[in-house]
């Protein structure tokens, strides 16, 4: 069923993107929202909504990274650092270890602020750097942040912080079911996507794109590139701070090995696979990769047994399958599933220069 839900959602958002009529768009979005809200009351399979809630967190993260990489063109290979900061904020502010028990909803704001601040602090040294030099410094921060958590016994060292508080809403505890988190991530995605959309059409968003296209020309347009870039880091990071809180609360645990380089790479892959810069693309890319990683690949034996009626053991081939899928998608759709207008044009332009040269 989970595949049906995800594919239907993807179909709906793609139609929304392709439709011109504003009224039709709103109608489809409303229908989608309603359906997504009703589904958990019809389908009671907890595991399904668990996967969807996990995927939802990654959608939020990918939308945040999209601000930094897709909009502002700053290649960030250490995005998991901000995710870690958000998650640890929840670990510290809502756990028996520290005896602090702030409500989940308050921590969402605090963590977004903390992560945003970290975005500014870690972004500042990178301002003079270009392209891949920027990438390697962010990669460095991505390595440093979780290792500092790992080496700090006050936050549990390698054990991290366990038995975190269970959030509650309107006096009802979330309990251990996944569905409440599913709703929280739905809300989170809606919020983050809406903000990202606003930004993309705003003065700030255009300034990011100007920097992405030509930093020097952007300066000549009176754009304060320092502040503008820091704003990208801060806003992108704060999105992942939100995601981190939901992630930690749902898991009931934070530990440093959750935020390694692989996570940054995973989120970046979601972005590139989906189509950088395009909100719909990013959502689709992160849903597809999440599903692949947390539903399809772990269950691949069972899925093949039930669809093809052959019994094979592919547990040993996880990486191979994943790698082949990544390579194949990129070779056949280098611009991603649903690229934005600029990417499509970029590729088209490259193809023209290719044939003409």
């Amino acid at each position, binding site marked *: 069923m989970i595949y049906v839900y995800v594919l239907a959602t993807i179909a709906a958002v793609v139609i929304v993107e392709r439709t011109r009529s504003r009224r039709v768009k709103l109608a489809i979005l409303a229908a989608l929202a309603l359906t997504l809200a009703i589904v958990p009351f019809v389908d009671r399979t907890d595991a399904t909504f668990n996967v969807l809630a996990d995927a939802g967190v990654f959608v939020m993260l990918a939308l945040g990274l999209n601000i930094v990489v897709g909009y502002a063109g700053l290649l960030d290979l250490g995005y998991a650092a901000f995710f870690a900061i958000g998650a640890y904020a929840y670990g510290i502010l809502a756990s028996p270890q520290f005896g602090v028990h702030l409500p989940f909803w308050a921590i969402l704001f605090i963590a977004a602020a903390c992560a945003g601040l970290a975005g500014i602090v870690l972004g500042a040294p990178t301002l003079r750097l270009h392209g891949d030099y920027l990438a390697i410094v962010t990669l460095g921060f991505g390595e440093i942040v979780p290792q500092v958590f790992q080496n700090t016994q006050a936050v549990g060292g390698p054990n991290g912080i366990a038995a975190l508080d269970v959030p509650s809403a309107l006096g009802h505890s979330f309990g251990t079911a996944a569905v409440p988190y599913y709703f929280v991530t739905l809300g989170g995605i809606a919020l983050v996507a809406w903000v990202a*959309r*606003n930004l993309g059409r705003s*003065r700030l968003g*255009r*300034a990011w*794109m*100007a920097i992405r*296209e030509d930093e020097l020309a952007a300066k000549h*347009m009176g*754009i304060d590139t320092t502040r503008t870039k820091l704003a990208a880091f801060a806003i992108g990071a704060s999105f992942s701070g939100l995601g981190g809180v939901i992630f930690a609360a749902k898991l009931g645990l934070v530990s440093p090995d959750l935020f390694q380089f692989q996570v940054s790479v995973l989120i970046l892959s979601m972005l590139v696979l989906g189509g950088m810069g395009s909100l719909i693309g990013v959502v689709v890319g992160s849903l597809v990769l999440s599903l692949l990683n947390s539903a399809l690949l772990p269950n691949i034996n069972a899925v093949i047994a039930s669809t093809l009626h052959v019994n094979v053991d592919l547990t040993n081939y996880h990486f191979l399958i994943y790698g082949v899928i990544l390579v194949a998608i990129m070779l056949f759709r280098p611009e991603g599933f649903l690229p934005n207008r600029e990417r499509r044009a970029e590729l088209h332009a490259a193809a023209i220069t290719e044939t003409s040269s």
Partner: protein
Amino acid sequence: MTALLSIDGVSKSFGAVCALSGVDLSVDAGSIFAIIGPNGAGKSTLFNAITGIYTLDSGTIAFDGRRIDGLPTFVIARRGIARTFQNLRLFGFLSAIDNVLIGEHARMRGTLVDSLLGTPRARAQERAARERARAWLDFVGLNDVGEQFARNLSYGAQRRLEIARALASQPRLLLLDEPAAGLNPTEKRELADLVRAIRDRGVTVVLIEHDMGLVMSLCERIAVLDHGEKIAQGAPAEIRANPAVIEAYLGAPA
């Protein structure tokens, strides 16, 4: 008349190469001013020094009576100096209208919250900015290309788009770096008309140009640079008769 831009003893060298040495220049408000000189004379370097890309080795640059040398490029731009580039630097993968809108960046107000939440205020401002942008496109004669990618426009259109983008910041001084390069005679004539129209809107124009015909017919004052030094300054007729200028252009008499 008061000098809008005064450049005083400006020097800049890159390693052993001296790109500018002791250049003085003063541009009156409301004029069309040309900087000419052979290739490598330091003309573009001077523009880069004005817009703060290069830090000066010595000398001062003042705009409207306030020093601007040492300020970051974006601050200089916000003071009211806009420019175009010798090798077009448009935001190629953005639409023409977005290019112009980015030009308006410094003129638009808006807090972070406006950008984040898309407040009614921000949306109203956005609509107004878009209308102004269209007007600028009309002004430079690009009425129907708004949604096309900048890089897909014809060369001449790209040149004009760059001017529209620069004008969108409502500058008081516009620096045009070889605006006529690569244009055909008709386009050059249209360019001259455009520059005059810009000046008539109260914008002072400084241009670097190689086309002498254009320079002589369009500009009120001309400065000549050679090997990083100013060798002459004056009205077109004076420049045309100046032996040092002739020598610089034709080479030292054998």
